[in-house]
């Protein structure tokens, strides 16, 4: 029997009204790996995440999580199986507090019915304590960044960098087996970018997460990736170590254009 990958996509196609965004894409991520997806804007990277998490169904192909198909499941079911993501465009629950943001997403982890909550029955109370403890644990993962009085502040009062961190904390709180990070360093200054790169390493070492990350910043990609996958127009054009992919002529072409075209 072939080696079983934690996440495996085979032959995934997705098009929007005749525009092929992903075509015949094969991709796998193994337990404990950090895989980076790179590619120019419009290469289909975010669509890839949307297809994995069930926001869109693939037109064709198979997506396996630990050997089981997750095609056709609702997004919340996919999350409950152990896939969590962050959003490139930050989609926090802005009018809820920082702690509530991380508590809310544990919905799938808990079972108390609304009637149990209403009358504060034992299971609801026990789960509530657990939710709170876990939320604080996840927020504490970010050291001094998201602690103390900030827990009770609304999410809209956070700075941009802290919003990105809260997005990650929120994804962590769903207790995923694989984390999908969509441009975690977008819009950050160089020192914050550096910090995010360290954080991703720490997520693997201490959090034991498997990570699939979309990133544009090549320093980050170089620093964290076990493996790099390059996409262009929905097609995988290269895969391998950072050095291999970065020097691959097709990747260079995708990013910079053909030399011939340039000189004309």
């Amino acid at each position, binding site marked *: 029997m072939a080696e079983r990958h934690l996440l495996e996509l085979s032959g995934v196609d997705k098009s929007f009204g005749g525009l092929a965004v992903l075509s015949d894409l094969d991709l796998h991520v193994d337990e404990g790996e950090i895989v980076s997806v790179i590619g120019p804007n419009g290469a289909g990277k975010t669509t890839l995440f949307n297809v994995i*998490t069930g*926001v869109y169904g693939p037109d064709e192909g198979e997506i396996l999580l630990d050997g089981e198909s997750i095609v056709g499941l*609702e*997004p*919340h079911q996919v*999350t*409950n199986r152990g896939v*969590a*993501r962050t*959003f490139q465009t*930050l*989609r*926090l*629950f*802005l*009018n*809820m507090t920082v702690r*509530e*943001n991380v*508590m*809310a*997403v*544990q*919905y*799938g*982890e*808990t079972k*108390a019915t*609304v009637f149990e*909550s*209403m*009358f*504060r029955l034992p299971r*609801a109370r026990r*789960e*509530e304590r657990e*939710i709170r403890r876990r939320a604080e644990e996840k927020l504490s993962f970010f050291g*001094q*960044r998201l*602690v*103390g*009085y*900030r827990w009770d*502040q*609304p999410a*809209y*009062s*956070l*700075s*941009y*960098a*802290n919003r990105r961190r809260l997005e990650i904390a*929120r*994804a962590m709180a*769903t207790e995923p087996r694989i984390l999908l990070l969509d441009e975690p360093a977008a819009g950050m200054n160089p*020192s*914050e970018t550096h910090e995010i790169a360290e954080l991703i390493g720490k997520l693997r070492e201490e959090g034991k997460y498997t990570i699939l990350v979309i990133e544009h910043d090549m320093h980050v990609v170089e620093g964290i990736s076990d493996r790099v996958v390059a996409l262009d127009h929905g097609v995988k054009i290269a895969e391998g170590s950072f050095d291999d992919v970065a020097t691959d002529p097709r990747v260079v072409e995708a990013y910079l254009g053909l030399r011939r075209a340039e000189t004309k």
Partner: protein
Amino acid sequence: MADELTPQVPPDQPRIGVDEWVASVEGRRERYRGPVGWARRAWDTAPPAVRLLAFLVPAAIFPLVTTEGNLFRYGLITLVYALLGLGLNVTVGFAGLLDLGYIAFFGFGAYTYGFVASTHTGRHWQAEFAILLAIAVAALVGLIVGFPSRRLVGDYLAIVTLFFGQAFVVFVNNANRIDFPFIGHTDLTGGANGLDNIDPLNVFGWVVNTTKEYYWFTLGAFTLVMILLYFVSESRTGRAWKALREDPLAAEVMSMPVNRLKLMAFVFGAAIAGFAGAIYGSVQTGAFPGDFDVGLLITIYAIVILGGAGSLAGVIVGALIVNGVPELLRDPNQAEWVFYTTLVLLVLVKVRPWQKLVAVVGGTLALGFALVAIANAWFPRWTAGQPGEGKLAHWVSHWMLLPSHPTQIANWAYALTIALILVLTLLRGWARTIVMIPTIYVAAFAWENLLLEQTAGATRFLLLGALLVVLMNARPQGLFGTARVEIV
């Protein structure tokens, strides 16, 4: 590296780029100073039980110090509205679903109760069963309406539910002559005449009869529902509702079954409306089609939005204002107090800095006294009118022109008031301050000579509308609402 230096307590002067700075630059952080700020912080930090007592104690004292009529008008009806507001707060405030058919569930509750407990139909169920049935029927109808609608968002949901609400009115108007197979001609709702002679509540042998007893019963019901809702709002379900209100896609991707949660919020709201309907039906011993129309829907929406969507305490305050103010305004003497209190508060709160405030107050007073003095000396007809009843009206008559035949001139003053307010919105700085003086005076003139006589009619709603406009301008998120931020 600015972020690395972030201190662990909010500093007075936030450093550029850190959280506090981000929040304050765009004015998104609410900061209150003075007594208002103190009260708000005290309220925010008070434990829930203390907040509940802050409502319960005055509510329990009220029936002991007031008359039967006032208890009904200010107490009981406010409570029924507040109970309705709690239900709408679940669908609209927590889950953010624009449900415009909400009042129909209220109607289902009232009619179901009447159907099983009234002389009209000849059935006399115990109220504990009848109320449970009313809740169950309303919840079931909510489920039936909500199931196909749960995928709808925003405007579409509003259209479907509005249609449902209107269909309900048509249905109860005509459901007195439905031909069922096997059963034959059946009268479900009494048609246009409604269901009359509905039984008083009879709960475990306690027959609720007087206004006072109804007040206690409704207060108990309201408190119970509020406590349960508070527990729900602080649970996984409540947080999930709020999350899907903020961002349905993020909520769905973050493990929350959005469609099921929406349906749940819809049914929850409907069940509470059904409960309120059963109480309302027995309070007025009847259920009539006209009671469940759009007017009431708008009233309840006003309560929830004014109080702050998503806030339980806000519902109480909203109901007190929306139901209490028009009732207060029925009596000209009380209306006089409401008008001048609102006017003075408005000027005190809105006119800054103090130099302008002094100018406005002094100018308005001086203008009035000068005009009265001039009129007394040369145009006696302008002060020949009768002042109203009461102390305040007497004081005001020294300051306000009261012509002997005011109708025509007061109509003009009314139109002039509106024109002046429009001009006022176009002006800035001292020009605005100066124009404010005649505006206030002319408005008060129109009030004294025209509107005061009609307080029982149109004026009170006019004034309530003005009050709502002012309040919603001052706090768009509602009195107890948290700031709503849509974009960043």
